[in-house]
């Protein structure tokens, strides 16, 4: 068998990234869009940690910061979602098309 190199991990990360981009661009449900954004962030994390195996621990420290930021962003995003849902009773992104209603 081919020994597992960094390139294998990068390909997995790229696959997850593309899946996340597809999710963000095509889904209507806001919560699923937010979850696709989390997929993108995880793909980036895998990339960072795979390279840190080669070049030292800086990648892992950066990955920890990315996870922290993802938590903050998910909290704020879901707060916005709840505030919006209370007004308009919908969770579809393409029904958010008026600046004032």
């Amino acid at each position, binding site marked *: 068998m081919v020994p597992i190199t960094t390139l294998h991990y990068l390909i997995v990360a790229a*696959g997850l990234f593309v899946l996340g981009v597809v999710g963000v661009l095509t889904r209507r449900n806001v919560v699923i869009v937010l979850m696709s954004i989390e997929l993108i962030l995880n793909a980036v994390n895998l990339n960072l940690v795979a390279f840190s195996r*080669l070049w030292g621990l800086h990648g892992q420290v950066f990955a920890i910061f990315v996870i922290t930021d993802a938590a903050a962003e998910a909290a704020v995003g879901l707060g916005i979602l709840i505030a919006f849902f209370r007004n308009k009773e919908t969770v579809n992104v393409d029904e958010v098309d008026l600046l004032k209603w």
Partner: protein
Amino acid sequence: MTPVATPFFFYLLSGLALLGGILVITRKNAVHSALALILTLLALAGLYLMLYAPFVAGVQIILYAGGIMVLFLFVIMLVSIEKSQREDQFNKQWIGGLVGAVALGALFVRVFVRSKALHDLTGMPMAQLPEQSNTQEIAVYLYGNYMLAFEIASLLLLVAIIGAVVMAKKRI
């Protein structure tokens, strides 16, 4: 720790991660998508363990799978209405989205195929990442070189907490 059966675990975990990713973007029920995302997160934690990064794996399990996904599940339970499951799941510009994603994928493929540095990794010495002191060395970096980023991250979390509370309250 001596690695055991690395290719088997790598293919298993990355297969689970990609399967979870596909399920996230295709399920109608948002709770099923959240469960698939949990599967992806746990598979990624396993991949981090294989990459000699146990602390990042532990943080991923505690924060991401045990914290953020609980938050997602609560919000899904709060806003999930029955009729949203019977509507269209994909929006009107799904073709454009797919084309864009395929273009991105092609870009990745070109970069990976053409880069000599990624193919020539056998000559490059791997970093010394002893697993027994991973947490301690990350702590040295976190409280040494990256102290400012650490403090800013804590400030960011404070702002996020206050912001989320203010936005989700019924009356300020």
